């Protein structure tokens, strides 16, 4: 999952980046509204965290312009002033939730998780697909009730595929959602991750959870029930 952070205060931005990376997200950031708007318009983010009081272009305007440009990713706004007027304005501009500064890291993660889940249409933080159980909150995967040891990137690839289950995901799309912008991308790496995931999830080749559609991409093929 790739997240955009638009926050003008340097130390808070750095803190957010660190926290979110530690939590396993790919993070891009911008220090003002114009940069933020540009990044959000040009890249397929899964979520944006936007401060309302931004230089050059206010947070509300950034959100309005993203929505006008057809960007649909969920947006979490941060407000320094606890005023309802600001919150209501931001939410009605197109944001999905707010968080008043100062906030605790746990609270931020809870909100981000909830928004990501809501955006993918999953009501619960736990997704069961056949023998595979994905716990988005804990960022853990179990197969047949056994915890699976995945690297950060492997987890990100699996999470994206499972949240978009049934859809065909191209390598490019997968790369864009798993990596940050200035990462040196190599689509072969994705093939390697998929191979490793298959071996870890389904060593006996019984379920075949990830299909390869030649020239088009991958698809998570198991049916899931929220629970």
């Amino acid at each position: 999952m790739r997240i955009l952070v638009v926050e003008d205060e340097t130390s808070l931005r750095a803190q957010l980046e660190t926290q979110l990376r530690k939590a396993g997200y790919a993070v891009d950031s911008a220090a003002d509204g114009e940069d933020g708007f540009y990044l959000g318009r040009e890249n397929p983010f899964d979520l944006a965290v936007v401060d309302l009081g931004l230089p050059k272009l206010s947070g509300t305007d950034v959100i309005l312009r993203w929505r006008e440009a057809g960007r649909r990713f969920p947006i979490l706004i941060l407000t320094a002033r606890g005023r309802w007027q600001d919150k209501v304005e931001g939410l009605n501009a197109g944001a999905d939730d707010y968080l008043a500064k100062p906030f605790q890291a746990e609270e931020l993660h809870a909100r981000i998780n909830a928004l990501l889940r809501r955006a993918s249409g999953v009501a619960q933080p736990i997704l069961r697909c056949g023998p595979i159980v994905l716990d988005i909150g804990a960022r853990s995967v179990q197969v047949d009730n056994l915890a699976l040891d995945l690297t950060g990137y492997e987890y990100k690839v699996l999470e994206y595929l499972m949240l978009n289950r049934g859809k065909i995901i191209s390598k490019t799309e997968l790369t864009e959602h798993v990596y940050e912008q200035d990462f040196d991308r190599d689509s072969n790496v994705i093939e390697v991750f998929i191979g490793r995931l298959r071996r870890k999830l389904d060593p006996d080749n019984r379920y075949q959870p990830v299909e390869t559609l030649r020239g088009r991409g991958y698809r998570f093929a198991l049916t899931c029930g929220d629970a």
Partner: protein
Amino acid sequence: MTLSLNTRLLLASSVVLAAFLGFTGLVLDSAFRASADTALRDRLQGYVYALLAASDLDTRGKLHLPAELPDARFSLIGSGLYAQVVDSTGVSIWQSKSLLGLAIPFTNIPGVGQREFAQLAVDRDLPLLSLAFTISWETNSGSDRRYTYRVAENLVGFNAEVSRFRHSLWGWLAGVAILLLGVQNAVLRWSLAPLRRAAADLRAIETGQAQRLPFDYPRELRQLTDNLNGLLASADNHLKRYRDSLGNLAHSLKTPLAVLRGALDGEANDTALRAIAREHLAGMTQLIEYQLQRAAASGRTPLAAPVAVKPIVEKIVTALSKVYADKNVRVTLDIENSVTFLGDPGDLTEMLGNLLDNAFKWCRGQVRVSAQPMARGALHAALDVVVEDDGPGIPGEMKSRVLERGARADETTPGHGLGLAMVQDTVALYHGELALEASPLGGLAVFLRFAVA
């Protein structure tokens, strides 16, 4: 360009005055001229009749005029009054002595019984008005003879009279105009004096020499000065509230800061230190939030326009429905479009935002907002607002405690009591009341009542 009121009034009334006096002058001038002219013509006519009366025909039908004429001026050379009688061919039969040595260019011979006036001039210094009158005289032999009597009078005297009148007329009018303008200027200065005074009084307030505008302004300005006083008072209140909040904030932050410092120095256990820091950071955040919200509320200001309640509620509900999208809250609005709140829209948004946030947070799935003008007051300032939910509500004995600053009914969901306390403060600014009741929906009902100011 912006002209001063004084200049505008003075300019406008001067133009009107000048036009009026000028027109009056023109009318008087031409009336006088016309009447002098008529008098002159009547006089000429009179001379002709006198000459006719003095004329006599001898037996041979020859016209005679006596040596002594009715007006002595006919006999004085160059007297300014001249007469001549010509026959039908224009040959002079008789002329007055006064005409000696002068060649008046009489030309006209009107028909019998006709009068003809003409302006003549012998030279530049001698303008004349002449009258020619032709009569037909029957001689003893029965034949008709036509004679034309011509009389002319010097116009110098007439012109001098007219111009004398004109001089004195315009002189007087100019005098009156100057006098009136002076009076008018004085009247204007006197009438506009309160405005100048208001400006001076405002300057005094600006420089800190006065607190309020005095109350002895003329009726027309009272509305304005009273409103200004109201604005000054509300600005003062605002400032005072900010100062108080700042003082309270600084004061109340000292305790948690002292605790933190003490813990830093005394607490060796890292986990305990973290717990203490976390607790007090949360407390300080709340304090700041509370005091800032309180200070930012503007309260009822004079000149506040009525604010429609429904659009504000709708905006907040739309926003909160997103935040609590997972709960699928059903919101019922019982608000007429015409319901208004007399005050600051920001204050209303803060109050309703806090109340609705609580309602969304605590409800099981239903929230109701109703607002209506208070039954007895026809004035739009009176307003009742109720925000209800179907949540757990607040038990009776907790209701009063929850309104105390910072107190929380449920310690695990922060901000509930804080929001209510803030709403209560703002309601108090509007001299309104806040009451907590049990809602028929099953949860809490918060009543807000804003009375007429």
